[in-house]
């Protein structure tokens, strides 16, 4: 596979956790500038996949590459290329939004991040909150700061684990807009774990379905909707694929 086209390449990836295969010979390729929606029920192996791709976990066997760099052997290079927003993350609530972003920018190697922080806040339409303590933020505001810290070092790939979990409809809408804007204006490839099919339909360009650690389906959203044209909703398509 071509390194430049496939920004993420996963080959025969297996991860065994407590004698159970969390991932079973997973093969997956994601092209540049895609918004990839990774679907699957709880325990299907979505978070394990994202943990391996973000260098948090080492696979039992197989390999995964980001922009041609191996996530185990070249983990430091991979870390420079990725941004990550874990599920249910709570930032430093005693610090202000600016102090939080400054911290993540500096440990990512940005020496004078002030201008960058204000640019990012403007980009995600979140100006004027920099001096507020994170502890005073709503869940939706928290997630926007989460996106800001994940993209502050301008990564090529952004990993989002259940980004809309626990958000109200307005928060979901805002986050959806930011994800699309990041993809269109900053040409960022986005890998999104989710179980909200409505989100996938509105945001993603490609979907993959994981079941018991195996990839059972992958196609573009357009093709998927065309292929299952008898179904009324993506939800029905999903159940059809799972069966």
């Amino acid at each position, binding site marked *: 596979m071509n390194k430049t086209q496939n920004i993420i390449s996963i080959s025969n990836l297996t991860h065994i956790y407590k004698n159970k295969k969390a991932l079973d010979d997973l093969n997956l390729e994601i092209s540049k500038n895609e918004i990839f929606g990774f679907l699957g029920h709880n325990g299907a192996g979505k978070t394990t996949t994202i943990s391996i791709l973000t260098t948090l976990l080492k696979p039992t066997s197989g390999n995964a590459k980001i922009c041609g760099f191996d996530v185990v052997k070249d983990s430091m290079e991979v870390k420079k290329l990725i941004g990550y927003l874990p599920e249910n993350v709570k930032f*430093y609530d005693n610090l202000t939004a600016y102090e939080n972003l400054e911290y993540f920018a500096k440990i990512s190697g940005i020496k004078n991040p002030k201008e960058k922080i204000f640019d990012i806040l403007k980009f995600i339409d979140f100006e004027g909150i920099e001096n507020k303590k994170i502890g005073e933020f709503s869940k939706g505001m928290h997630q926007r700061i989460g996106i800001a810290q994940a993209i502050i070092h301008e990564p090529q790939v952004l990993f989002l684990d259940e980004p809309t979990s626990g958000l109200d409809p307005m928060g979901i809408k805002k986050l959806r807009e930011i994800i699309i804007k990041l993809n269109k204006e900053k040409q960022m490839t986005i890998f999104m774990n989710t179980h909200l099919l409505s989100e996938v339909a509105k945001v993603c360009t490609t979907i993959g379905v994981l079941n018991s650690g195996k990839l059972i389906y992958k196609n573009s959203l357009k093709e998927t909707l065309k292929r299952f044209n008898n179904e009324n909703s993506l939800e029905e398509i999903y159940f059809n694929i799972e069966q």
Partner: protein
Amino acid sequence: MKFMNNVYQVITVAKKEYIDALKNRVFIIFVSFLLILTFVSIIVSSFDFQAKVISYQTALAELQASHQIIQNLTAPEFYPLQLLRGTIEYIEIIGAILAIVLGYLSIAKEKGNNTLQLLFTRPISKIKLFFGKFLGNVLLLTSVSGFMFFGIYLIISLIGKTVITNIEIEKIFLSFIFSIIYLSTFFSISALLALIFKSLSNSLILSFVIWIVFVLVIPQIGDTLDPDNQVPGGLFNKIGITQKSDQLTILKDFSSYEKARDSLEQSSFTKHYERLIFALLGIKDMYNGKTINFIINDKNSDILWLVSAMILSSTLTSIIFTKKKLINK
């Protein structure tokens, strides 16, 4: 260039740890509690000290006024550093809690909030993250201790109306350094347990169990079993055996008992800290007027224990921090 980048990243983490803790209410409450207790205790004992000095000076003036011969009178010895006894006990007890709270906040809170997981996906090595965390928190403990010892120096000088000599300043400075080592050990133990245990509340409970055993129980048992502590003012003094050599001769008959008691005390690094600092500050009478070199030589085993406990706990914490999988899967 690479070295400077590494230093920059470590300092960034250290600075965040420092500021984050300073803005934490729990930490501020414990610091305030420690400082209030220390300063109140020092102020009260400094007034007492001042009264003793004034009383001596008044008596001396009266004698001189009545033209009595005072050349052959031995002047009483005042030891202002003995006023720090309460402070050292507060550092032993409340300071240790403060360090435990810091260790817990530094690791457990980040584990629970998933920020540790997030930091591990950043282009910074785990060892640099650990060094940054350790440095930031040790600097914070240094600031608190420094503020406390400097405040004590000022209070004794101003209220106690005594001149602290250069040697006494050096002894206070050494006590400050060893206090940081003592507190850093508790920080590392608390951080270590927060890293090992999946349940963060269990790690905190175990930290406090260790605190109770090493800070309260063992030293208390050791003190209770000490023959000289059986009656107020000391058993030997009460029965008129004041010479140290006589006391040692009698104690020879109880050598097994004394060995067992001492071994029990030796197992608590809090007791090693106390023995060392009490000697340095002359709280233990036999060390009054002794040089720093003499005290350091005499107490080298306590220093060794104290430093070893700090090195061992921080090394273990760094190993677990860098090697253990710290994410949920």
